[in-house]
């Protein structure tokens, strides 16, 4: 039963990902991306990493996709179709992606990790303690760096999107 659910989620993710990169309506593309990201959150739930699944839903589904949909509304007529990709570009991209996929697949089958144990997942408490620990294998420094990065990105967004005065420039 658990295996069946994994295959179901995997097919759901790949189908929605495929539709997201091939559909010609940009708004539908964003919605298919939304479903693919929800499927990935489902994969995390399947692996019993509930905290990562929650972060995925909160940041990707609740944040990034909403941001993308807003930018679509601001920059496109939502009913307008995207132009057709020319045939040579399509075939070249298809060959590049397919050959890369097959090459990686060969590597995966050569790797063959054997029988692995499906282990228990860490608790949120343990995650929080290691994230803020300054001792061995503590992640306090990357945590602080990422907070600085987020602040820098926030300021950068404001500066870029600020309305420039054409007379001054």
């Amino acid at each position, binding site marked *: 039963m*658990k*295996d069946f659910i994994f295959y179901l989620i995997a097919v759901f*993710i*790949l189908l929605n*990902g*495929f539709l*997201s*990169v*091939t559909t010609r309506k*940009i708004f539908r*593309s*964003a919605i298919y*991306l939304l479903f*693919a990201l929800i499927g*990935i959150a489902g*994969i995390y739930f399947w692996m019993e*990493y509930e905290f*990562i699944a929650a*972060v*995925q839903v909160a*940041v*990707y589904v609740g*944040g*990034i996709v909403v941001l*993308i949909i*807003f*930018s*679509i509304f601001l*920059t*496109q007529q939502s009913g307008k179709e*995207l132009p057709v*990709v020319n045939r040579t570009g399509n075939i070249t*991209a*298809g060959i*590049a*992606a*397919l050959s890369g996929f097959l090459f*990686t697949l060969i590597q*995966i089958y050569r*790797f*063959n*990790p054997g029988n*692995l*144990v499906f282990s*228990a997942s*860490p608790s949120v408490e*343990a*995650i929080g303690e*290691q*994230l803020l620990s300054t001792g061995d*294998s503590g*992640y306090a420094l990357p945590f602080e760096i*990422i907070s600085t*990065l*987020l602040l820098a*990105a*926030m300021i950068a*967004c404001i500066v*870029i*999107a600020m309305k420039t005065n054409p007379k001054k420039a």
Partner: protein
Amino acid sequence: MTEIGLNHFLILSTGLFFLGVYGFLTRRNLITILMSIELMLNSVNINFIAFNKYLWPDQMDGLFFTLFIIATAAAEAAVAIAIIIHLYRRFFSIDVTDAGELRH
């Protein structure tokens, strides 16, 4: 007990990654290119979590890498969308073929 091994996750994330590559190469609209990049980042996250779950079960390093990738991806998407909206104000188009002002 489940039959799903590490290989299943690797195949899933490989498929998702190269769907992103295909979208990145064929799309001409900046927002759809950004969506393809998000797909690729997510496939990498699946890899990190699967490796952590199967190969390194009593540690949490893969989990933290995934958290930091998600945070970086959010910052990247925000800056990219700010740039896209600014580009639209200037050129009234977000097609990559129209934004050739930096081209030498």
